[in-house]
């Protein structure tokens, strides 16, 4: 089985069955064997109602439903065992890129690449959304030092082992290309044309914004410090402690050499506070060390590409 086409259904669009049909015809006209999986992330009984539309397909079609809306990462991991294909193609609930671009994406998956990142040109969503997307992607690029320009395209193509080996959890599916690159998988960015834009427009909720910022933050830590996390904590701890120490020395010097009363100085409080934070951070670093030793041992640091 060459391709496993997964449809991640987040919202029930009326066009969805037709979209699946078009994709089916596209794959049918190619010579490689494929299968279609649909997973509904909490969309109620939408799938049951459209079951009949797929009965005349000539390939394996499986549809699953999660009763509660969970993150996309969890969805994908939950059907990983049901996929038999070597290359996984993940699509959304509506057609976001044109057919020709999609064919181009499929064809650009050669033996060297492990994951294809589409980059949408001529985007059709409102300017404000494009601007937000631009800022977000630029921030992520800066922090993770990768070269991925479009993280919110719903189409992703990657080899099966990418999903198996990256640590996907929470809202990290959006950052799958970055995690894959960090693991050493080869990625390629291909330009494609935007066909429809039916996503959410305008302002998102505060929770989503803070969520994104926190995601970037945790991405920063997992990309930079997953190999040596503890040095990070202990080093900030040490820095805080030293600054506090220096301040204390200075204040005490002022007290005894120049006679300034120090009981009420705000800098005394700040110095003590910095020393406490320093000790706390360093001890968290130690704790992390212990955890990495006891629990992290199974997680291998290397990622095998081939064994001969």
């Amino acid at each position, binding site marked *: 089985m060459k391709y496993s086409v997964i449809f991640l259904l987040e919202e029930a669009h009326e066009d969805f069955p037709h979209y699946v049909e078009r994709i089916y015809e596209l794959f049918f006209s190619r010579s490689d064997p494929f299968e279609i999986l*649909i*997973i*509904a992330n909490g969309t109620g009984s939408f*799938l*049951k109602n459209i*079951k009949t539309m*797929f*009965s005349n397909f*000539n*390939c*394996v*079609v*499986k*549809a*699953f*439903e*999660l*009763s*509660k809306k*969970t*993150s996309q*990462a*969890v*969805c994908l*991991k*939950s*059907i990983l*065992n049901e996929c038999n294909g070597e290359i996984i193609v993940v699509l959304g609930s509506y057609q976001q890129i044109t057919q020709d671009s999609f064919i181009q994406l499929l064809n650009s998956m050669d033996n060297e690449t492990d994951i294809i990142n589409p980059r949408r040109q001529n985007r059709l969503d409102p300017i404000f959304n494009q601007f937000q997307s631009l800022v977000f992607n630029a921030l992520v690029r800066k922090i993770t030092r990768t070269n991925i320009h479009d993280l919110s395209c719903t189409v992703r193509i990657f080899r099966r082992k990418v999903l198996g080996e990256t*640590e996907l*959890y*929470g*809202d990290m599916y959006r950052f799958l290309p970055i995690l894959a690159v960090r693991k050493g998988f080869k990625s390629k960015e291909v330009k494609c044309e935007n066909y429809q834009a039916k996503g959410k427009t305008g302002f998102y909720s505060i929770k989503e914004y803070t*969520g994104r910022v*926190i*995601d970037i*933050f*945790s991405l920063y*830590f*997992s990309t930079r*410090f*997953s190999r040596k*996390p503890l040095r990070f*904590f202990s080093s900030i701890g040490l820095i805080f402690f030293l600054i506090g120490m220096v301040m204390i020395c200075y204040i005490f010097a002022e007290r005894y050499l120049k006679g300034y009363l120090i009981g*009420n*100085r*705000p800098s*005394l*409080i700040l110095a003590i*506070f910095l020393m*406490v*934070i320093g000790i*706390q*951070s360093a001890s*968290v670093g130690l*704790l992390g060390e212990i*955890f*990495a030793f006891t*629990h992290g041992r*199974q*997680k291998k640091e290397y990622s095998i590409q081939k064994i001969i």
Partner: protein
Amino acid sequence: MSVYLSIVVPLYNEEDSIEILLSNILKAGVNFDFEYEIILIDDGSTDNTWELIERLKEATPELKAIKLRQNCGQTAAMVAGFDHASGEIIVTMDGDLQNDPSDIPLLLEKIKEGYDIVSGWRKNRKDNFLRVFLSKIANNIISITTGVKLHDYGCSLKAYRAECIKTLNAYGEMHRFFPALASMTGARITEIPVMHHPRTYGKSKYGLNRIFKVFSDIFAMNLIIRFSSSALKGFALLALPFLLFFILFGILSSVAIIYDWTQGKANLFMIAAFLNLMALIHLIILGILGELIVSMSDLTHTQLPEITKKTIFSINDKEHNKDHTSATYITIID
């Protein structure tokens, strides 16, 4: 012998109730049209519970018994039972005759309808007023904070699909929160009214100091549930009040400095601001540590969707159309 139902009963010093309990279960079991087993766990009893069990075992082939070396707690005893249960459906019960085994078929019906966890609801509780009242408050709080609205979290009579409960890897005092824990990864949960008998033998093992423990467990459970998808976000929720207070006191102390309320000395607003900042930084650091741990761990809680996902249809799938009995977790609606 492929067993369909496993009845798991943890016991602690129930020598007066055990014979009646077993005979009640067997009486109800006569009407079952499937194979079942009874698993009794002796959680370090100091009375004759185990001797009685050994005696009863000879007469009852369905009985399987586990003796724990010391009192490990109800959750640990239940987990021991789960690990040795071979049924597709597991029903847990109280060992003090408060639950009625004849309610079991009602639970099983709901499981057949497609639910993963069915909880019993003791509608007419026969306990004293204070206990019932406190229970109601606790149930309300748990329902609201975890999002799983059950009327009776304290009822031990519950039915689970075996995979759902086995993968939870419970510990501590989690047994009250099995529904809440399982729900976060998509298990379908429902409740049905069941009978409640008053406690006839022995004393209740729970006192009022349990309240504090239960509430702190609720808090911890909420954190764990939020953490398992993103540790930093879970901590962000906790950190929010500290952030707000930091901003508030920061503004107040800047105003105090500008207008020189305390003549250049440290003022209390500053101390308060620093303390809140300290708490904030602590929480951020712990959140990062949490992220690290989550990404390193096995994330078993995210395995549950694999089990609780429901197959809506599958076409042309030759592998799937094996000989499944109706009791498997995947119901093919084809």
